């Protein structure tokens, strides 16, 4: 049974708290690069919260927008990879196979959302911080591109569970770390192919927009615009 995993992010609910950012780091063994590298623009945040200032003091407004990989249907990052490290898997995700990646970084250039992050050096954890590493997720060596996977390891685990219990996956049974942690429940995850799922229902909302829809990437992340 095929799924098409998608996400809805309600910008009217999002408060910019960045719980998703740390949740993602913890779940996906994302390297902490340190001050020097971070200052160079090499920090890795598979999901980031973009901040947009509008207006001038005192009539100033801010908009937050969490941006994970948009898991595009027509992903520009995929065909440019010469080694098939980036391709669309059977569940519609823009998969990145670290073992196949040779580090051309073409995919990162092609991604209009700048949603791909590169390992400029080998990651390291000061002992015993390595004990925090999630054994379900591989760590990435120097020279390899990485990106949001919609917590693919959780999808696999949930599927295995459902299979063991001889049933279908239920909507909302599991979610990626960012969705799970979101304190204001701004993010919803689920199967877009299931018209009954919460994510399908919300992505059909008239508040729904795609980020950079004009680029023609057909993202599977839908943003619900702020109402003010």
């Amino acid at each position, binding site marked *: 049974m095929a799924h098409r995993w998608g996400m809805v992010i309600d910008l009217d609910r999002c408060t910019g708290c960045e719980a998703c950012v740390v949740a993602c780091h913890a779940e996906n063994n994302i390297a902490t690069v340190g001050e020097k590298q971070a200052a160079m623009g090499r920090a890795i945040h598979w999901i980031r919260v973009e901040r947009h200032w509008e207006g001038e003091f005192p009539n100033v407004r801010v908009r937050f927008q969490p941006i994970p990989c948009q898991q595009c*249907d*027509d992903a*520009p990052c995929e*065909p440019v*990879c010469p080694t*098939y490290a*980036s*391709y669309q898997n059977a569940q519609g995700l823009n998969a990145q196979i670290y073992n196949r990646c040779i580090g051309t970084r073409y995919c990162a250039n092609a991604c209009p959302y700048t949603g791909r992050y590169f390992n400029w050096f080998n990651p390291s954890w000061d002992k015993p911080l390595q004990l925090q590493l999630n054994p379900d997720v591989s760590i990435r060596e120097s020279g390899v591109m990485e990106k949001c996977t919609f917590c693919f390891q959780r999808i696999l685990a949930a599927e295995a569970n459902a299979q063991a219990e001889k049933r279908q996956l239920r909507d909302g049974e599991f979610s990626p770390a960012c969705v799970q942690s979101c304190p204001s429940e701004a993010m919803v995850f689920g199967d877009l192919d299931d018209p009954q799922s919460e994510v399908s229902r919300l992505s059909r909302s008239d508040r729904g927009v795609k980020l950079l829809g004009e680029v023609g990437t057909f993202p599977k992340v839908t943003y619900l615009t702020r109402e003010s």
Partner: protein
Amino acid sequence: MNAIYGLFTDAGAARRALHELRGASARMRIGDDQILVMSSEPPEDLGLDLPHQRTRMPWLAALGGILGGTAGYSLVSFTQRTYPLPTGNMPIVALWPTGVVTYEFTMLGAILTTALTFFLTTRLPRSRRRFYDPEVSDGKILIGVADSDSNFWRDLERTLYEQGAEQVKQYSHA
């Protein structure tokens, strides 16, 4: 083989000598393929009157191109079908990218065939020693006859000198 040949500095002389040899071919029983010409520049540039050369090289190159293109297309379609990973919602064997690769392989095929044809038809490279005179490299034009009847050697030598050969040499090798 053996050969008797003259070295010419002057292209006109060489041309005349060649003409003379060809004229005397019936008399001295010299076949067209026995006439030796060697030069350090293309004979046409020197105005030497040589039998028209024919080659199928362009056709072979075209054929090579077709083969190359077919090979390119086959490689692309085979590899993509063998490991059918969808990317960017493109077809597994997509027209445009396959076209680009097919084109390059077509050209590669034509290039390789041309080079190959060149080496095959000129029978190069050769490591075995063959009849040659290094003075050709100094710009001399070599006109001579190979494996001619020994009765005509004197005759040939004289003819070559008459036509302006600076030197006439004899070559023999078992």
